[in-house]
């Protein structure tokens, strides 16, 4: 049974432990791949120009780091959305942001831009921003943005996005449509350290914003009236949390396509283990989300031998059945 209340000390201890776990995972993952390559030889002085160096430093490390920051962004956004929607089974993709990113990304790919070009994530991110703006504006009625409204508008946005993507695919050539499908399924191919740094910095900013509102979100768990009577500006907090989490999801999807279940499973599992207090859940989701996706991607890279699976397949295979299990447990009114 966990402690009766959350202390600063516990947050520090758990965060430090998860950080160590993440660093160890990054190191291990950099040493694992379909091709044997030695981490130590690659990092030894004077190794530049050897294949070990090429493999580890130029292909594996950027990829592993990207998996980490994308996982961190998705899981943190998930924690934020679950708190915002007061629903432990909320998934960040459900709010329409990912759909917006996907539509714009798909459109730009079909227009002939190379999937490796930085234009793709940029435009996709604009799509995410657009979708987010629409959701925020449409869901706000009578000066209030309720979770219910956000959810409904988000579902509709996703439906519209799905239809638009089908349209894009229909007018595209066959191979272009295939390209779009693969991009959407999730790709962590990168050698670009600057892209990783950009998304990473972004994820940290988003996490900090969410952490800033974590105490208020905790209070919101007792209802709008309780929170308001305890001094929370409910509308402002809801909007800030939604925007921060939406931007996190937008950034992740723009860079790596739709990787499902990370944003749902990681915060949910952490909540079961660590309790619902978001002041711990936000940093924990950040660190464990990174670890989770690093390992999922490592599996995706190695399980089929020299070929690899899209990482979204692994997270779906892991996450899907687990989600069903959680759903059953929750429907049975089991312990939370």
């Amino acid at each position: 049974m966990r402690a009766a209340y959350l202390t600063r000390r516990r947050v520090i201890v758990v965060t430090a432990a998860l950080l160590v776990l993440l660093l160890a995972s990054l190191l291990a993952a950099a040493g694992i791949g379909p091709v044997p390559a030695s981490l130590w030889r690659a990092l030894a002085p004077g190794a530049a120009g050897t294949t070990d160096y090429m493999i580890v430093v130029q292909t594996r490390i950027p990829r592993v780091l990207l998996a980490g920051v994308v996982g961190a962004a998705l899981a943190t956004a998930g924690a934020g959305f679950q708190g915002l929607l007061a629903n432990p089974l909320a998934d960040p993709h459900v709010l329409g942001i990912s759909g917006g990113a996907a539509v714009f990304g798909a459109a730009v790919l079909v227009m002939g831009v190379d999937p490796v070009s930085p234009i793709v994530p940029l435009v996709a991110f604009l799509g995410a921003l657009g979708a987010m703006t629409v959701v925020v504006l449409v869901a706000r009625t009578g000066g209030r943005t309720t979770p219910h409204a956000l959810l409904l508008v988000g579902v509709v946005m996703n439906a519209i996005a799905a239809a638009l993507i089908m349209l894009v695919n229909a007018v595209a050539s066959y191979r272009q449509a295939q390209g779009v499908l693969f991009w959407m399924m999730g790709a962590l191919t990168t050698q670009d350290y600057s892209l990783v740094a950009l998304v990473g910095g972004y994820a940290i900013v988003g996490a900090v914003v969410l952490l800033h509102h974590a105490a208020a979100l905790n209070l919101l768990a007792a209802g709008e009236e309780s929170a308001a009577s305890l001094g929370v500006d409910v509308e402002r907090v809801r909007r800030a949390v939604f925007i921060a989490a939406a931007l996190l999801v937008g950034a992740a999807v723009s860079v790596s396509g739709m990787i499902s279940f990370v944003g749902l499973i990681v915060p949910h599992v952490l909540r079961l283990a660590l309790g619902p207090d978001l002041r711990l859940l936000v940093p924990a989701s950040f660190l464990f989300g990174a670890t989770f996706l690093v390992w999922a991607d490592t599996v995706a890279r190695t399980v089929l031998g020299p070929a690899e699976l899209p990482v979204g397949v692994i997270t779906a295979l892991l996450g899907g059945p687990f989600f069903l299990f959680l759903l059953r447990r929750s429907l049975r009114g089991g312990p939370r």
Partner: protein
Amino acid sequence: MTPSGAALVVLALLAGCDGAAPPPRAAGAARVVVLAPSATETVFALGAGDRVVGVCAQCDYPEATAKLPKLGGYLTPSVESVVGVRPDLVIVVPSPGNREAVRAIERTGVRVLVVQDRTLDDLFTSIVAISEALEVSDAGRRLAADVRSRLDAVRARVASQLRARVLLVVGHSPLIVAGGGTLQGELVEIAGGTNVAADVGNAFPQVSLELVVARAPDVILDAAMGTEEGGRALFAQLTTVPAVANGRIVSVGSDVLFRAGPRVPEAAAALAAAIHPG
């Protein structure tokens, strides 16, 4: 024809397409619908182009097809349109998307000829099957012989050169390459290259960049959608790979490369020119 491999990396496992059935003998087909670009080229190359009354939207060669009615996409043919032109023979290449449409067409009593398009063998088999269905078997034999001899010519041209290690890229991000057992892989071999991804299971597997480093191809053929710059940027940092170090990343046009039709020797020649320039 089909970039089927790229399409079916994931879907192929689920699809389990039907094999080609031997065509029933019947009176010469006078009204022919062809629902695949590769088969269309074969029909015209057999001299039977005047019998074609409708093609798929992607069937764009030869020029005569421009005047023909388009009856839906290669993957999604329009059953109504097909039946509407009253064909007595419909030639299709199977794909997960068109299975229902094909069954529907069969149910209307129209003869359907199914041909495959994955490998060179498929190409020759389909030439035979189509020529028999159209009762132009002689033309079929001549066409097959012609294709074979042109392929042999390409082989001969590069016979004296050292085989180059070649990677054929069909997608940038994620990185997808042509594996063994694909038409494209076969063409690489004919063009004087060794496909370094021949053993990487599956028709068009997704691979990591580290595999490219490990396999160290001499030439990277870029047949992906997207741009040349994209292809170069993708591999730019991998300086231990000979293809990168020596600037041997070559864009190859993908239209003919992904059609198992009679123009396959042109694709082979283009690959040969890319692999062994000069």
